[in-house]
Structures are given as structure tokens and as C-alpha cells.
């Protein structure tokens, strides 16, 4: 009983787990439900965690699988409901409208539109700073798949954001 209380260790991870869950769900209430479900699941399966390995990557994996198991359906229902409410979401023709919105909102929308599997990898590598290998291990996918999903997501974002990079533009 001299090891640290696992519950306290999970609590110390909560800010990062919530950010990750927010990236998956785009809804703060759903994100907190997801984090709570994942933490309780982790405590039930605590014997499966191998001391000495990264608790964070184990937890990110549980958050992700819990999301796939329990929350994707809810998320899909929510998206369909939103689509019903807003049939005139701007497409290519609506670019002008998008540009008038705040940059942050535009970016958030672009991220939400990414396929789920690309967004998970984007959150883990670009936002959370996991290595490709740790991400591949945590998600149980090959390293090459991490790289291809990640680059598809980032190329799409960089192109859509229309950043000029003028400083380095060819003369």
C-alpha cells in the first residue's frame, strides 16, 4: 500500500485527458462523461496497467476505446441533429462566409470535419506531443498508419487555413 494512490494519479492527468476528450467529442459535457467513464474503467482494470510504462498513454488509449465503444453513436446522433438544424452549412461556395468568422472558430470547424481516425492521431501527436511510436502503441495501429493519418489531417488543415508563409515565399 505504499505505492501512490491510483485515483490521485488519474486526477493529476485530468486536464490532459479532458483536452483529449474535448478533441474527440467537441462537447465539454460529453468530454467529461467520457473522461469519467474511462477513469472508472481504468480503475476496474488497474491490474492490467504495467508499472513502469506510461500511465498517460495507457489512459489515452482507454479514453479512445471508450469513446469508440460508448460515445460514437451519441456523437453521430448529435451531428445528424446539427445537420438537420443547419442545412445550409457553407461548402466551397461559402468560403467567404467562413473567412468572416473568427479564425479560431474556422479552425475548430475544420478539425471537427476531419475523419475520426485522423483527428485522434492529430490530438495525440500534435496537441499532446506523443511520439509516433507511442501513438501507434497506444492505438494499436502500425507506425505507417499513424504517419499517413497524421499527414492527411495536417495537409488538409494547412491548405484550408490558407496560411501564406510569406516570410519564406519565393521571390
Amino acid at each position: 500500500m505504499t505505492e501512490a494512490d491510483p485515483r490521485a494519479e488519474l486526477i493529476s492527468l485530468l486536464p490532459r485527458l479532458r483536452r483529449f476528450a474535448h478533441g474527440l467529442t467537441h462537447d465539454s459535457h460529453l468530454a467529461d462523461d467520457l473522461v469519467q467513464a474511462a477513469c472508472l474503467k481504468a480503475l476496474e482494470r488497474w491490474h492490467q496497467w504495467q508499472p513502469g510504462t506510461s500511465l498517460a498513454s495507457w489512459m489515452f488509449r482507454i479514453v479512445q476505446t471508450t469513446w469508440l465503444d460508448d460515445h460514437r453513436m451519441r456523437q453521430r446522433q448529435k451531428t445528424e441533429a446539427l445537420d438537420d438544424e443547419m442545412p445550409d452549412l457553407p461548402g466551397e461556395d461559402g468560403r467567404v462566409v467562413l473567412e468572416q468568422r473568427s479564425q479560431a472558430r474556422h479552425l475548430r470547424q475544420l478539425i471537427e470535419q476531419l475523419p475520426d481516425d485522423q483527428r485522434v492521431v492529430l490530438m495525440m501527436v500534435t496537441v499532446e506531443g506523443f511520439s509516433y511510436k507511442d501513438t501507434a502503441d497506444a492505438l494499436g495501429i502500425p507506425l505507417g498508419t499513424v504517419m499517413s493519418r497524421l499527414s492527411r489531417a495536417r495537409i488538409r488543415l494547412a491548405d484550408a487555413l490558407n496560411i501564406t508563409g510569406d516570410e519564406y515565399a519565393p521571390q
Partner: protein
Amino acid sequence: MRPSDETLIAYLDGELDAAVFDEVDAALQDSPALRQRLQQLAESDERVRRSYQAALEAPVPPELIAAILNAPDPRLDDRARAAPQPTQPGLGARLRHWVERLLDQRAPLAFASVLALVAGGWVAWSIKPVAEPAEWALRSGETIQDPGLQVALETAPSGRVLRAAGHQLELLASFEHKDRHFCREFNTSARGAQAVDHLGIACREADGEWRLALLVSEEGPADPALDGYRTASDRQHEAADGYLRANTSGEPIDPVRERQLIDRTWTP
């Protein structure tokens, strides 16, 4: 050959092996267009990170913390789990009790933001602003009413310095009283040019309240070396040591046992 976007991304992530890294470096030297593309990718990444910064910094809801603390301790084996539950409420229930009290008050506590402070893997708590002197009216012999201090005495290991809202609280050590209950020595001070410093000893009563057994207060200049806080003087420490010698073994409880006592609600 122009490196692909995928290679540029791996370059940004520090995921290329040395040989390929050097090739990309050389290609970047030669090509303004490639540098522009790298810049676009890097700027896009930076915006993605920034857009999630608020989610990282948002206060963690107390309900979420309480739900985790209320879960069974997975370190207990099946036999221990099957054993009769202690009649004392567990740590999680106690913390939730405080959390609910704090939420009920909806006072200018900013408790939610305080919960965002997670002190070394443990829950931080609220220390009220100095503008509410009644909350800090500590008097020997009275039970401690401040929820932040109550939670700290009940759950925080010794040796932690907690700072919030212009106050600093340090739990110095725990002692076993000759009457078989437990006492904790703590030091609080406010930040400011002239700050009152309290060195206190609180003892846990059978009903779970913490009663102030001793309080030695002094006003004095803040110590710039302590970021504007101050610590107890020799005179304060001598008074506290006198009390501890007379009423306890005088030896602090070791950290492992203290941790067990916190987990067991301070029952011997």
C-alpha cells in the same frame, strides 16, 4: 528531389532519422518554396495547439474529481474489498462532502479555478481571499471552519506548500497525541508587505472536526526570497515545539504511516 509533405511533417515532429533529416535540411536551404511550405505546416500545427489550450486550462469539475475519488481503491485485493466497509466515510465521500459544501455556498470562492490546481498529483483546495477575515479568524480551542484548511488537514500529506488567492499554507508534520488521536502542525501566511503568519496545531476530534489546539501568530515583513510570503519565526516554533513535547511523543509520524492514516480517515 523535393521532400513530400509527409516528410516535412515528420521533420517538424523530430521523427526523421539523421540521414533523411540532413537531406531535408539541405533541400530547405535550396528552396524558398519548400521553406514556405514548411512554414505553413508549422503555423497550422501551432494554431491547432493553441485552439485546445483553453480546454487544458479549464477548471476540472469537482464532480469528476469526486467520482474518481469515490471509486474503490484498486490497490486493495479482493479479500480487502470483500471485508466489511469501514463505518467512517471514505476519503472520496469526505472530499465530496467538502466540495458540495463549497458549491452550496457559491461564495466568492472561485473554487472551480482552485480545483484546476492539482498539487503534485493531489487535489488542491481553496484558500479564501484575505478580504474575508472572518474565514481566517483562527482561535485556539475552536474548531476549524475554513473548508480549504479542513480539506488540507484531512487529506494533504505533510511537506506540501499550497498557494492560492494570496495565501500560502504549508502542512509541516503530523503527530500522535498521547490521547491516541492525531494532530497536525501547519503554517499559513498571507502575501504582502506586512503579513500575519500563523503557526498552528490542529487535532482531530472523534467526530471528525479539527480543533485548533495552539495558534501562535506574528506580524512581520514578507521575505522577498519566499516570493513575498513569510515563514514562522523561532519564537513561534518554540511555542509549538513546547506543545508537541508536552502532548505527543514529539516525533513526527513518518510519511508512509501518514499516508495510511489519511487513507484510513485518521483512525489508528
